[in-house]
């Protein structure tokens, strides 16, 4: 988060040097509007995450998506990411909730990567009309193994760096 704040500060300074105070204010106004627009969705996402964390049985989640869930856990994570409806305002709060109640990094990575790469929502509403059916199907076919591979790689690396990572 500190990194982001620094990056933003540098960007604001660069915009100010190029376009002056007026340029900075123009961007700020449009961003504030956007923020007001998405704030209700952020609330919805947080509530969804809260409900899911309370309703799903923690022992079952850590059994089927936890560190010892094997390939099956990665497959469940990937399948869940692919069918999850909504946008980033649902995917990330739900992923975060799963992480909090027992899913491991591997299964959560499989879910997030699957949502961005093979989630049907974005493919149908944006990629298909803009890129065409041939490209979209070809791209999805190529992407199909990636959530599992990313989850497996994540799990493989995580157990090896965990001690240093958690401290």
């Amino acid at each position: 988060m500190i990194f982001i704040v620094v990056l933003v500060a540098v960007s604001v300074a660069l915009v100010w040097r190029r376009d002056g105070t007026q340029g900075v204010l123009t961007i700020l106004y449009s961003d504030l509007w956007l923020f007001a627009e998405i704030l209700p969705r952020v609330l919805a996402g947080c509530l969804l995450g809260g409900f899911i964390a309370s309703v799903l049985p923690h022992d079952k989640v850590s059994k089927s998506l936890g560190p010892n869930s094997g390939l099956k856990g990665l497959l469940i994570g990937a399948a869940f990411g692919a069918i999850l409806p909504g946008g980033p305002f649902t995917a990330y709060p739900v992923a975060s909730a799963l992480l909090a109640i027992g899913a491991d990094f591997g299964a959560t990575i499989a879910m997030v990567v699957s949502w961005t790469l093979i989630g049907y929502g974005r493919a149908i509403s944006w990629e298909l009309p803009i890129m065409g059916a041939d490209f979209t199907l070809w791209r999805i076919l190529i992407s199909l193994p990636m959530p599992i591979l990313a989850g497996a790689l994540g799990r493989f690396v995580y157990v090896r760096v965990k001690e240093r990572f958690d401290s």
Partner: protein
Amino acid sequence: MSALLVDIVLWATVLGVGLLTFRHGRPVFQDALKRGATDFIDVAPRVAIGVIGAGFIAAIIPPEFITGSLGPDTGWFGVLMATIAGAATPGGPVIGFSLGAVALKSGAGSPQVIAYVVAWALFAFQRMILWEIPFMPARFVWFRAAVSLPFPFLAAALAMLIGKP
């Protein structure tokens, strides 16, 4: 119109899962509400920084950088440039896919375009700082991004291997 539809589906889902939670009893429901509200208070300022920041970062990325890096027959260097361009593309899916479509039409190689689309899906800075970093633990986000690094290249390699659609 589609934004309205998204909101309707979103709140209907929240309502549905909320009712499900309520059936587990009042304490569980209140606990969940409290958790959601605490998260919201925690996340909202970070989303604010993300939204405002993304606007300014987008303003300093020259558009030529992104369109220029998707040229024809650029080989593995082109795949690398396409990957960086995918991560640096500001805006939502319309902009990302439109740039990809234009690049395809103007002669960019399909392995490079697929690397671009995959990199955009995995690393688009706007989605990361607007949504992923505010909602997920920071160490998860960096770890996820690091683990995802090989995949635009793998996608390009597979695309070269199985050929154009």
